């Protein structure tokens, strides 16, 4: 283990011996290929010409008036594919291609990462197979259809809780078996080293752009930033360039039915342990069995979290708070009706937390929300949820 495989005590490489060769190969590629001129040029092309970067930093007039501070949205919803996931998918798919891999496997919860992987695979000529819990396939049927349309194979996972956690288990099992020709394109800052660092680096484009954009628009750094945290890739991508700056950082976790009930708020309601290759906060019982998480949002329905977030929680650099299903739905409708922007249910958690922390701020305080994805995929579910409530 190299020292950089840990964030404080968190992270590491808790995987079967059979995978260590692949992780070493990936780490070598991360060190040599990612910084190379060829890779950087290719990424620049794909992000700018293909994916549509930079994404706007939108000043929200109506919300700013309503919340009495200056509210901006980082518009990852406008990225090709409709979510931030494509930044990482393009990066890893390009890396896999330069490593000589022919096949990509991915896991997906909400389906956004699966769609991003399918897009990146189609663009770069790689075979893509996506593991998805059958419960998630049902609640995210639109994204299943999109993946298939893009030429990817979607493999239903029937084991365990039949959600994101089990999709990752199956992807890891596939990788152990097919490691010679396959790259595991993990979708968040989770998993064994070097994935949490690799994925963070590909998502840091979000924070870097925010920095440039806010300096041009406001002439100084924001006062606070908010992102939702499932595995935590959009949040890390937003926070990374600001960790050493006087900017308050907030992570919105999936509070589900509330911390006393079923939830997915790993950092607020879990304790450290080992899952999917990393030592990190987990939702688990006293004996270390992982418990099923719950969230109205499939993308946040995960009982673990990226190890760097565990570190940022303990050292209190980031404040993590739980947002319930009901609060997220309320903010889904709020943003839709206040600004005409339908957020992903995941991102609606960040909007909900932003509305709370806006209270009592000065009128000229700048608050930036990472709108990590758009909400088209969630419309049927929100309609059903609000119908249930009425």
């Amino acid at each position: 283990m190299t020292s950089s495989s840990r964030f404080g005590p968190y992270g590491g490489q808790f995987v079967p011996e059979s995978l260590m060769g692949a992780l070493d190969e990936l780490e070598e590629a991360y060190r040599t290929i990612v910084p190379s001129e060829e890779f950087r040029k290719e990424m620049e092309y794909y992000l700018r010409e293909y994916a549509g970067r930079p994404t706007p930093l939108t000043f929200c007039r109506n919300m700013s008036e309503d919340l009495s501070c200056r509210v901006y949205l980082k518009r990852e919803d406008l990225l090709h594919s409709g979510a931030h996931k494509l930044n990482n998918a393009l990066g890893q798919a390009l890396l896999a291609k330069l490593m000589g891999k022919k096949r990509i496997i991915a896991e997906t919860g909400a389906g956004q990462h699966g769609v991003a992987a399918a897009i990146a695979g189609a663009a770069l000529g790689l075979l893509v197979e996506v593991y998805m819990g059958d419960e998630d396939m049902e609640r995210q049927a639109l994204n299943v259809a999109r993946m298939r349309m893009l030429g990817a194979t979607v493999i239903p996972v029937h084991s365990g809780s039949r959600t994101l956690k089990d999709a990752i288990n199956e992807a890891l099992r596939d990788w152990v078996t097919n490691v010679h020709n396959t790259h595991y394109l993990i979708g968040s800052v989770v998993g064994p080293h070097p994935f949490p660092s690799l994925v963070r680096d590909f998502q840091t484009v979000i924070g870097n752009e925010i920095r440039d954009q806010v300096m041009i628009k406001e002439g100084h750094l924001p006062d606070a930033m908010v992102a939702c945290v499932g595995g935590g890739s959009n949040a890390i991508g937003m926070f990374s360039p600001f960790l050493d700056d006087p900017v308050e950082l907030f992570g919105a976790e999936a509070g589900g039915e509330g911390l006393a009930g079923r939830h997915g708020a790993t950092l607020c309601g879990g304790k450290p342990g080992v899952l999917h290759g990393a030592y990190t906060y987990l939702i688990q019982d006293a004996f270390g069995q992982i418990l099923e998480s719950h969230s109205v949002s499939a993308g946040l329905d995960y009982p673990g979290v990226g190890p760097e977030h565990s570190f940022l929680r303990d050292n209190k650099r980031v404040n993590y708070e739980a947002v319930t299903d009901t609060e997220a739905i309320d903010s889904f409708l709020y943003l839709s009706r206040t600004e005409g922007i339908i957020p992903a249910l995941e991102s609606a958690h960040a909007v909900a937390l932003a509305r709370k922390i806006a209270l009592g701020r000065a009128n000229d305080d700048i608050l930036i929300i990472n709108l990590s994805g758009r909400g088209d995929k969630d419309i049927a579910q929100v309609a059903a949820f609000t119908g249930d409530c009425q």
Partner: protein
Amino acid sequence: MSSRITGAFCAAGRPLLVACTVAGDPSFDESISIIRELVCSGTDIIEIVMPFSDPVADGPVIQQAGARALASGMNTDRLFELIREVRKETEIPLLIMTYANIVVQRGIEEFYRDAARAGADGIVVADVPLEEADPFCAAAGSAGIDPILFVSQTTSPERIEKILSKASGFVYLVAVMGVTGTREEISPEAIALLKTVKERTSLPVVPGFGISTPEHVRRYAQAGADGVIIGSALVRIVGEYTSRKAGAESGIGALVKGLKISAHEN
């Protein structure tokens, strides 16, 4: 000091049969009966799997057995209780196979200490490679437990050397690329790996994963294996009998006897 595991390999002078069973599958009491049957039918070492909710190194058979066991109330306290019960009846070497989080949640030192007190001899942790092994090996050392480490087909020669320097008891050779579960064939790569590792160590080398037939056992024995680990082939029988609500013991006994004859033919 010689452990029960080392003692078994030294005393035998022939390949040993390591039989795997999932603790608490389908229930605590039936698990004890199955272990009794394994002992009676001539198993040399028993590997007791402590199930984990997310067993990434396991195929469907052991996944399902683990789920049955957890549903029947198996947990780490009950595992040690089960080992204490078994230890009252037999001196057979007992290995625990589990995943890192089960060990970490009890506390690494506490887990190894409690395992030793209950009567376990070795511990294998499926998702702890060399990079993470130090605290586990240290705890094993203080508790008098053999830390069993893996070597796989993707392990480089340099890694093999490092792993061998930390292993004791025996070396667990992962004989397939992939998860646990029976396979039709033994790959030439597995045989080649066995020979490579045998050349570099005086520790016993024992393949596991994918082994289910007398022919498999014969081939590994001929290639110099000091034993073979039979996992899913035995665990599957428990599953089949569980669904028929009948005792799995006779099926398990018959398989063990058949495989054991093959192991001894050399």
